[in-house]
């Protein structure tokens, strides 16, 4: 959906008094700034003007004018990293908005339906036992063995949870929550067993993966994650009206004309696939899915027709911003990305909880 399209769709009677267009513009500017920042900032800083020149030459296929070093850093190192970061940030944030809408609870996030624990279990299993499996994959896919395992693990766990929560053709949101907790705990126990079995080097590899990083981003990872994340964004945009009705209650949404069961199932599968792909590419990066939709709601209001594109833009901005911080704080070493998002996200989440408590009384 184009920016104009989004602005038109949301400039409706209900949203008057909300700065929807201004908010979306702001988030778009932040996302673009973070993207350019991600290409420019690093141990070898490149002026934004030079970044644009390199990109322009690359897109138009013109004879490159800049230095070889600039081109390698921008195109081969930072561009795939920024694209993976933008995809992962958008995907996690939109998945958070979807889950909060489906659970009708602003404190919900994708980990409730087991994506991250399932992905982690599969990732560690791959680190410990995967070496023989690697031989089975064609060589270009060998570098992405771990992400593929994580993706499959997250998807399978979520589908099992969704199946458990279904009874008589209806998905109980409460059962979904508890099945998610139980299976998440089970997956974590499995992860614990794997770590116990792992060698020291394997434990280190896995630990690093659980802390999240864009460090291993490649064009291959970007290409693998893109269809799932873009699919999630498109599906979320399509479900937006139904999610607004769902905020009125499940029965009310049905009365208003929403196929509630289909909406819930579509949302869970899209989240599992999209977040699975994001987690596979970056490792576990917490709090983006939880916090970004909140921030977006503070500016543009709760209507999902604006919230979905706003979360996508702000999610990309936040994840890329966090990655810039991760690279700068301990330069030339990199802090794990999940550490940065948790350092910023956890206090924000606490503040939200306390504010909510003060409001509820």
């Amino acid at each position, binding site marked *: 959906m184009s920016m104009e399209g989004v602005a038109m769709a949301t400039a409706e009677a209900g949203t*008057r008094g909300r700065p929807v267009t201004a908010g979306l513009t702001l988030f778009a500017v932040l996302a673009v700034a973070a993207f350019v920042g991600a290409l420019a900032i690093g141990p070898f800083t490149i002026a934004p003007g030079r970044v644009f020149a390199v990109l322009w030459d690359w897109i138009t296929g013109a004879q490159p004018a800049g230095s070889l070093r600039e081109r390698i850093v921008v195109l081969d190192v930072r561009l795939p990293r920024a694209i993976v970061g933008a995809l992962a940030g958008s995907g996690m944030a939109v998945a958070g908005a979807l889950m909060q809408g489906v659970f009708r609870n*602003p404190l919900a996030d994708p980990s409730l339906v087991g994506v991250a624990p399932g992905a982690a279990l599969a990732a560690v299993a791959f680190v410990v036992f995967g070496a023989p499996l690697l031989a089975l994959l064609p060589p270009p896919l060998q570098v992405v063995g771990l992400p593929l395992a994580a993706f499959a693990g997250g998807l399978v766990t979520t589908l099992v949870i969704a199946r458990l929560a279904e009874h008589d053709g209806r998905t109980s949101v409460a059962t979904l929550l508890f099945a998610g907790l139980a299976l998440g705990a089970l997956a974590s126990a499995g992860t614990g067993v794997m770590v116990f079995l792992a060698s020291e080097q394997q434990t280190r590899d896995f630990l690093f993966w659980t802390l999240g990083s864009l460090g291993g981003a490649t064009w291959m990872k970007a290409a693998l994650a893109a269809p799932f994340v873009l699919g999630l964004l498109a599906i979320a945009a399509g479900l937006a009206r139904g999610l607004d*009705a769902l*905020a009125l209650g499940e029965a*009310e949404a049905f*009365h*208003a004309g929403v196929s509630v069961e289909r909406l819930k199932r579509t949302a869970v599968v899209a989240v599992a696939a999209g977040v699975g792909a994001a987690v596979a590419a970056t490792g576990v990066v917490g709090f983006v899915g939880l916090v970004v939709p909140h921030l977006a*709601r503070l500016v543009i209001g709760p*209507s999902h027709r604006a919230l979905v594109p706003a979360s996508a833009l702000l999610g990309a901005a936040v994840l890329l911003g966090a990655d810039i911080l991760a690279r700068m704080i301990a330069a030339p070493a990199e802090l794990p990305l999940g550490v940065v998002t948790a350092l910023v996200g956890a206090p924000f989440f606490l503040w939200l909880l306390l504010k909510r408590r003060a409001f509820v009384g």
Partner: protein
Amino acid sequence: MYRAENVTVTASGRRLVDGASITVRPGRVTVLVGPNGAGKSTLLKAMSGEHRLATGRVTLDGVSIHDMRPLELARRRAVLPQAAEVAFPFTAAEVITAGLMTGEGHDRARILRLLARVDLPGFADRRYDSLSGGERQRVQLARILAQLDAGKPDVPGYLFLDEPTASLDLAHQLTVLNIARAHADAGGGVLAVLHDLNLAAMVADEIVVLAGGRVRAAGPVAEVLTEPVLADAFGIRLRIGVASPGPFILPQNVQAAQ
């Protein structure tokens, strides 16, 4: 015409509604009355499509509502919820547009008119969660009116109201019942669950008395609101007076039946 034909609804082995058949006609207000646990809300939910039927069928103009897509059904019938919490900080106007599944009916002037009609002028941009129970009830009424407006205005739409007066003061009970009346007078159909027999007598064209999940009596107000019918349904003896335009029931005349 919106009909329940021989509808039975069961929950954990109990028959909440037992072989009930009722008809809601366009241009008429049909009111369900009966004691607590009679199955009034359950029957309304079965007719709205929310509850599954154990047996029987529910039809709208001869077509089973279970063969219709939710969106198709929503163009023809709207349901006022009893106590509705909204999950996110929507404003009153946003609650109304949240219930509109198509691009129809979103224009601001129409929403302001509907809010004025439920006596909430100037409430469009107030937060829904800051409103009182009675104000929320009226926002929800405006929402379902908007839903039917955006549906198929050329064929009769049906309003289902489950205890629409529950959290309202006397003046606003009349506001809501007048809206129901006006909807029927404009050619639509209304099915309402009401506790207050006097309000029921005032607004209804037809009354259906439900007890123990079964229809005990159905028909025009004067034929149904009689001492034997009410004694049978409610288990108490009532004295019913008649004054223009219809019957009235005074609580001080109530005696236990046994």
